[in-house]
Structure formats: structure tokens, C-alpha cells
């Protein structure tokens, strides 16, 4: 299996504070990798290093075949990113948002036209193409944002709490999109506060106080910790946390 994210003792210090402490893990192509942790455990710091937005203090990491110290621009071109907090421009229409992001990633006019077409059909949003994003229901926005993050066919997509606040049906439709993308070979790196969603991941890592305190499939983690569900696994690990941001 091809490895698309590789880290070895990846560390970030801010002064005396070690935000991420010797993280070592690998993620394979097409894998859905859940990246969980208590508030302040260091998830955001780790994600920012992997996205080429923050220089590590020490250790190694390679994302989509590129080094996080020397090839950050290449990393950015080869990954997609979506967060609940920021994703689409509310004052642009659906079609304009697609064109904007596709343009940023350097797609040609012909490619942009084709992608727009493909995306609107897949999301069944053809009649909404000229609507402002601000007028769409939240669930639609999030599905659109996810598809837009894939517009340049990245190898990996980073999803930072993508389903926060959406209704239970839309939340599951969103996961259908995740499965579909993973089935096509896209690696999905996802954070969430919904513990049932942790169960949908192929493997889950749980960070506590800057270190990865568990990493395995949901099934194995539950077995190891004798827990009925992932919520209990998380609770058992995270309640030992000493620091809170």
C-alpha cells in the first residue's frame, strides 16, 4: 500500500511549550484517517505542519511525496483543505466559488468548465449554480465546500471538523461523499467531535497532551480498552489529559 503521509518524531515547540511531541505515523492512499484529540491536545498544530503552513521544530514528515521543510508549495498544490469555519465565499455564487478555487489551483478554462459541470451534477445543484452561497442551507454549503476542496484532484484532503452543527441526515450524506472520495483513492484526514464518526474511519489516532496516545482501527481500540464504543475509548484516554491549550 502506497504511503501518502509519513511522519517520524515530528515535533513543534513554541518556546518551552511542546505543542506536538514526536508524532510518528503513516497514512496510506485511500485511507480514511480520523485525527482526534482533546481540546488543546495539539491537533491543529500537527495539521498545520502537515499542510505546509507551519515549520516543524524537529523530526521528519513527508506529505503527498513532498518534504514539509523544503517543499511546502508542492504540498499545498497536492492537498485539499476544508474546515467548518472557513471554506467558501458567501458573497460569491456557487459557480463563482468553484471557478475561484479551480482558478487558484491553476486549472485551465476548459478544465474549470468541465469540473463545474461534473460537480453540479454530482451534487444535484444545477439549479443553484447562480445562487449566492450565503443563501444555501448549511448542509449544502458543507457538501459543496468538500467537493470544491477536491476540485484540483488532490491526493489528500484535510477536513477540520467538517460536520459541525449539521442535521443527522446531512451529516451522514456528508460521510457518503467521504467514502466515495476514499473509494476513488483520495486519502481523507479528518477531525471530528462526533464520536460515532470516529467509527467510520479506517484508523483513528487520539492525541492527548501533544502525543499520540492511541492509533489503531476503531475495532482494535475498543477491544484493547474494553470499551463499548469510540466515545468511551476517547473518554478513557482524554480524561487523563493534564493540559488544556
Amino acid at each position: 500500500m502506497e504511503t501518502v503521509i509519513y511522519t517520524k518524531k515530528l515535533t513543534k515547540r513554541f518556546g518551552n511549550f511542546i505543542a506536538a511531541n514526536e508524532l510518528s505515523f503513516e497514512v496510506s492512499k485511500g485511507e480514511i484517517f480520523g485525527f482526534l484529540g482533546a481540546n488543546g491536545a495539539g491537533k491543529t498544530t500537527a495539521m498545520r505542519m502537515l499542510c505546509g503552513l507551519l515549520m516543524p521544530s524537529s523530526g521528519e514528515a513527508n506529505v503527498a511525496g513532498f518534504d514539509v521543510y523544503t517543499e511546502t508549495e508542492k504540498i499545498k498544490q497536492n492537498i485539499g483543505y476544508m474546515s467548518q469555519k472557513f471554506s467558501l465565499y458567501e458573497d460569491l455564487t456557487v459557480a463563482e466559488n468553484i471557478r475561484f478555487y479551480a482558478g487558484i489551483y491553476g486549472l485551465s478554462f476548459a478544465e474549470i468548465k468541465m469540473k463545474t459541470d461534473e460537480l453540479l451534477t454530482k451534487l444535484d445543484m444545477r439549479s443553484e449554480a447562480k445562487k449566492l452561497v450565503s443563501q444555501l442551507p448549511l448542509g449544502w454549503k458543507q457538501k459543496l465546500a468538500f467537493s470544491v476542496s477536491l476540485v484540483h484532484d488532490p491526493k489528500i484532503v484535510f477536513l477540520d471538523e467538517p460536520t459541525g452543527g449539521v442535521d443527522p441526515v446531512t451529516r451522514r450524506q456528508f460521510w457518503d461523499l467521504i467514502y466515495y472520495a476514499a473509494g476513488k483513492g483520495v486519502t481523507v484526514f479528518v477531525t471530528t467531535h462526533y464520536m460515532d464518526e470516529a467509527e467510520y474511519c479506517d484508523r483513528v489516532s487520539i492525541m492527548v497532551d501533544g502525543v499520540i496516545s492511541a492509533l489503531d482501527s476503531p475495532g482494535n481500540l475498543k477491544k484493547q480498552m474494553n470499551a463499548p464504543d469510540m466515545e468511551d475509548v476517547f473518554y478513557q484516554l482524554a480524561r487523563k489529559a493534564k493540559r488544556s491549550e
Partner: protein
Amino acid sequence: MMIVTEQLKKVYGKEKIVAVDNVNLSVDKGEIFGLIGPDGAGKSSIFRMLTTLLIPDGGSATVNGFDIVKDYKKIRHCIGYMPGRFSLYQDLTIEENLQFFATVFNTTVSENYHLIKDIYCQIEPFKDRRAGKLSGGMKQKLALCCALIHKPEVLFLDEPTTGVDVVSRKEFWDMLKNLKQMGLTILVSTPYMNEAALCDRIALIQSGKILSVNTPEKLVNNYGETLYTVTGGNMYKLLNLLRSYEGTDSCFAFGNSLHLTLKYQTKKDTVVAYLQEEGFKDAAIQETIPGIEDCFIKLLKTN
């Protein structure tokens, strides 16, 4: 009754978007009442009308017997409000924020310290830290202290646990239980359906409309259909197969299993046989008790 709304309505903008659509609710004294629904359902608009920060476009409501439009000043004295967005002073320290809110309400921190003691002692070691520099869990505790320091009769908590990790969420709900024991009435909203079970009664809300008001137990008992869990094999393939199966009424992923309801006359054993025929040799189907989220999904479908 501590809170009563009658046909409460809020409409926004030129497009006349109905955010709150003729909502009728009543909350008893000493109750923890949950407003459960996704973003955009109208939860915050209801909170803002009840806390007298937004004037309704129709209907009426009272809090502690006072009218939310006419008696707004009286209401402001007897309620505590924790808005969805962190709204304390980022440049003041923990201690300064608390003193500020006490002073604004003509009281002192020491006078009502007993109300916040259990919560405040957890953040007291950091009392000289500015609010803007606190973690999510600590901000949440400070905001709750500031909402309590003038000894309100009703607490309005708008999504206090959103974006907070499972451990802090559990702690927060334990705090609410203690406050209830002290006699406070609490109206709380959340997008996490599993938190609904911790309320005395809940209203499920979507698109400004109340879908159902009940105790969590009764809501689950009224589900009215047999719900099954399905396990065995690749979950995503199993989900797609069951969705295309003619006997399936609904099928959704639920953590490590699928939740399935069947059309009338479809038997469980028929489905098992079908799944095994399709190559899912370990497929197992069992009856299960529905959760709040199952009820919500069903109500979304029927509305």
C-alpha cells in the same frame, strides 16, 4: 411555568425568511429543557427573543411571568445568558470578567459565590489570565460563572458544548445537574443529539418549527417502528446494498453498525438470507432501542 411561548415568530430580511415559525413551548420551574436541532433551525433566535435581545414579529412569550417585550428590564435581572459565541471581555482576566458582571448587576462575587464555587475553583488557578487566552473548556466555565454570578432564576445556554471535546462536555452536563438541584430553570440548546438524553424534556426543532416536545424516554418509546442494527462486513458496501434493497424503509450508518427499518411485511430473516446470498456471510441483524438521533431522523422524514 418559568418560560411560556405562544405562536412565537421571527422573520428576517427582505426575503422574509421565517427563522422561528409559531413556536409554542412551556418550561417548568426547575426543569432542564433542551432545544435540539441543527444549525439554522432557529434555536439562537428563540434564545435571543426570550432574553429580550430581539423583538418577535408575532406571538408572545413570558419569562418568570414577565412579558418579553413590555417587561424586558425585569427579565434582564432574573436571567443568566450564555450566548453561542464567546462574548466575555477578551482583554479582561478571568477574575476581572467575573467582577465586572457582578458589579453590573449590583452585587458582589462573594455574595453569590456559593452558586459558582464548584465551577470557579476549576479555573481559579488561572484567574489572572486574560479571557482571550483561555482554552475552549475554560472559556465555557468562565462564561457559565459570569451568567450565574447575579443569582438568576433562569439560565439560557445557547450551544454551550459546541466544539468542546467529549470530556469537557461530560463535565459541563454534570455542572448543569448540580445547578438544577439548586432550583435553577435551564433552557439549553445543543446540536449533539446524545446530550438530549440528559435533559428532563426536549423539543426537537428544524427549520424554525418544533417537530416534537417530550421527555427523552417517551420520545424514544413513541418511535413506533422496529429498529434493527446490522453488522458484518464492509459497512459502506453493506449500507449501499441495503439502501437498494426493496424491503428497506430506511438505512443509516450509526457508528459501528447500521440502523435499519423495514417496510411493512418484510421479515428480518428474509433480509439476513438476502445479505448472505450477496456475500455478507457474517451479516447479523438485531432489534435495538432507538436513540434520540433515530427519532430526529424519522421526524425529519415525516415532516
